């Protein structure tokens, strides 16, 4: 009987040779993916898989929060409803709106500790209907995150399975292990400043021209269910080409080059003035200050006395 089945199998495999790679091998259906909002990451991992757990981890200033904002922006731009469970209440809605997130379509859960965050994400996933549920654990103490039992991650993966929800977990270290279908490790590279050395006659005033323009971040795909990672064979050195295939390098820009002004012109504004109040958008005179350092006493006064004043104190 066994010999007959083996013969039959060989016969079918030889008949399908060249057309079907492994006819008797069970192939899990590929998850539907959605864009992460960053072309390099999309090319690397094929996007964020729906119905799966995606984990993004990295140290401070590696760009994981930026990745979260771009993912939220991409989903909300597609008229989808997202939820963010913020374990340490560290989400900045101003930056998110600048990144393109439609805040109206975002349910933000501000937690005070990890326990609240875990309970909230459990409730959200069971409620269902969200396109993206992000859990930001990056601000929480690593010791507490490590104490989360693996069974909890399995439970989350099981809950989100067979749904169209993307479960995105952000942390400083990898915790979900095999429960995650996609694991990305973020690392920062060099930063770009507008002016490295300040050569000005007076040391009293710092130059406004020295701005944080951005930095380059590298995303390494640690695990991907959709795309099998290149397996390093014993005795064969891992080539640089293979390494590059699992890396995505992309730039993060500071938002001082683009204002939300509807005129579309680029305005030189620092990042913390990204969102401009409606009555104070006429900042042409103030922006002119940004080009050259000036004496603070010479800074022009804004006409909007009833609004808050914004000055570039060069």
């Amino acid at each position, binding site marked *: 009987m066994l010999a007959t089945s083996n013969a039959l199998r060989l016969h079918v495999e030889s008949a399908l040779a060249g057309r079907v790679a492994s006819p008797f091998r069970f192939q899990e259906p590929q998850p539907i993916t959605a*864009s992460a909002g960053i072309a390099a990451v999309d090319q690397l991992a094929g996007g964020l898989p729906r119905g799966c757990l995606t984990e993004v981890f990295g140290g401070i200033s590696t760009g994981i929060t930026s990745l979260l*904002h771009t993912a939220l922006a991409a989903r909300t731009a597609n008229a989808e409803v997202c939820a963010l469970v913020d374990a340490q209440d560290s989400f900045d809605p101003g930056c998110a709106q*600048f990144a393109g997130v439609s805040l*109206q379509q975002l349910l933000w859960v501000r937690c005070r500790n990890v326990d609240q965050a875990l309970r909230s994400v459990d409730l959200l996933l069971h409620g*269902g*209907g969200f396109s993206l549920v992000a859990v930001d654990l990056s601000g929480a103490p690593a010791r507490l995150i490590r104490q989360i039992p693996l069974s909890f991650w399995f439970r989350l993966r099981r809950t989100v399975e067979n749904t*169209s929800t993307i479960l995105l977990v952000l942390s400083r270290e990898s915790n979900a292990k095999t429960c995650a279908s996609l694991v990305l490790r973020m690392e920062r590279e060099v930063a770009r400043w507008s002016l490295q050395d300040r050569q000005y006659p007076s*040391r*009293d005033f710092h130059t406004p021209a020295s701005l944080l323009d951005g930095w380059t971040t590298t995303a390494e795909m640690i695990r991907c269910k959709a795309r099998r990672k290149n397996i390093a064979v014993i005795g064969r050195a891992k080539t640089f080409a293979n390494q590059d295939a699992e890396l995505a390098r992309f730039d993060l820009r500071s938002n001082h080059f683009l204002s939300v002004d509807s005129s579309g012109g680029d305005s030189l504004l620092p990042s913390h003035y990204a969102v401009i109040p409606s009555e104070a958008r006429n900042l042409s005179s103030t922006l002119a200050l940004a080009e050259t350092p000036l004496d603070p006493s010479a800074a022009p006064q804004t006409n909007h006395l009833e609004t808050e004043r914004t000055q570039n104190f060069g």
Partner: protein
Amino acid sequence: MSPAALFGAVYVPNFILQAIGRCEPELRTQPLAIIDGPPPTHQVVALNRLAEIRGVARGMTKAAVTQFAQVTIRPRCKVREEAAHAALLDVAWSITPRVEDAAPDTLLIDISGLASLFGNAQAIACEIASRACTFGMQAHVAISANVETARIIARALPGPTVVPEGEESRFLETLPVSMLSPSQELSDIFDRWGVATCKALASLPVLALSECVGQEGIRLQAIASGKGMRPLLLAEPAQHFEEWFELDEAVDDLEALSFLLGRLLDQLSARLSARALSIAAVQVNFELQPAFDHAFDTSRELLRVKPTARTFSCNLELPVPTRDSKLLLKLLRLRLQSRPPDAPIQKIHMAAQSSLARITQGSLFVPAAPDPDKLELTIARIMAVVGEGNVGSPHLLDSHRPDAFHMQKFSIATIDVNASESAAKRSTKNNLQNSPPNHHSKKDVPAIALHVFRPPVPARVRLQGNKPAFASFQGRSGKVVQASGPWRSSGQWWEDQPWQEDAWDLEIVFSGESPVRHGWYRFCYDRLQEKWFVRGVYD
């Protein structure tokens, strides 16, 4: 009046008793006596058949009724009667908008032309009785071409009764004259004449009757002969829905309270369903047990003062109207769990704000979103975990103040559907054309995000030439290798809470055993407090 005119009368017998039984259905199977009157002379005003069998009679004093151990005594409750009357009106309005509110226990309705909806007159009568039954009331229904005939037959005969046109006098002839509700003077005259039934009254000569008792007698005779016609005095459909529940003993347990709330919500939901409406908001007012603030002060003045009842209210606003009483009960329970009343509850008053039922049409292009009802429940549950005000959608304020936003209620209903649909169509079009997910132009380069420290972390900064050179916070310190700033901003100097700060973007390389070696931070110098803070880290 057109020949097709048809009227119905709905009469609830023993209305006082049924109003109590509607709120407490378990009392229907027990001997029950309702007492009313000033406290020393409570008298039985209504009783059911079981109490009657045991010997209780109307007019008995409370002391006499207490001799019957098995008989349950309840005081008359006007608010429950009002609620029962409102429910009865809702039953009638669920059939037709042409309703006359004749009495608390009697309604007259115009059912002309309803045959296409409900069938013949018998079917309409059965439908009305059935709907009244779902509201917890047993009603007599009579249908006739004559409105007064319908009213009298409903009061006289149980069950659904249909009086064929032209046979009104046959149905009325055996009924006593007292069913016509004559005045006391006329009633005495009819007694003296020996006129006891409607047939006898109808057979009297009209002129002679007019000479003896006037126009009132003529009107009663016309009613007795089934010919008294009059127009309906239509009632305006009410838009407020209220239910009450008064407890004999105050309740302080949420489980017991939720049982009562569920019953009230069921009643409200049924009433609104009958009117094809939904609940947009629910307001629950609890009358709490009076607290004796001066329990140890037994002075005469204080004892004379009746303690005033305190109230506790709980409001529930729904993003989309619903009739799901179970969902409403869960939301109310969660709300009460997070903010319970501080004293036992004596009385519950529940009012529902009505709205038209939600009509939704799914779109092929709009992506699936959470079900609004389910989402509301999920948000309420999360709110119970993280606290009120920590769940919602952020709304940026029109201000330069850092971190200026406020949380607003998250609702699917507030999302701009047109914008969503156009965005989704755009996305679908892109997918159909197999275009890449993103066309990354220069402006599409992802922006740096700020990981905010809330509240800002106090820091110590050493300056060199008005520029930060060393910084320390949260137990770690480092050298500033690059800095950008100061970016000065201020505001609200014309108000009570002015702010003024200098913001800096700093690149710090930490020294020592710190696990974090490097980072780009946003510092701010509060010029009013003259202190440094870390507002967040670029991440």
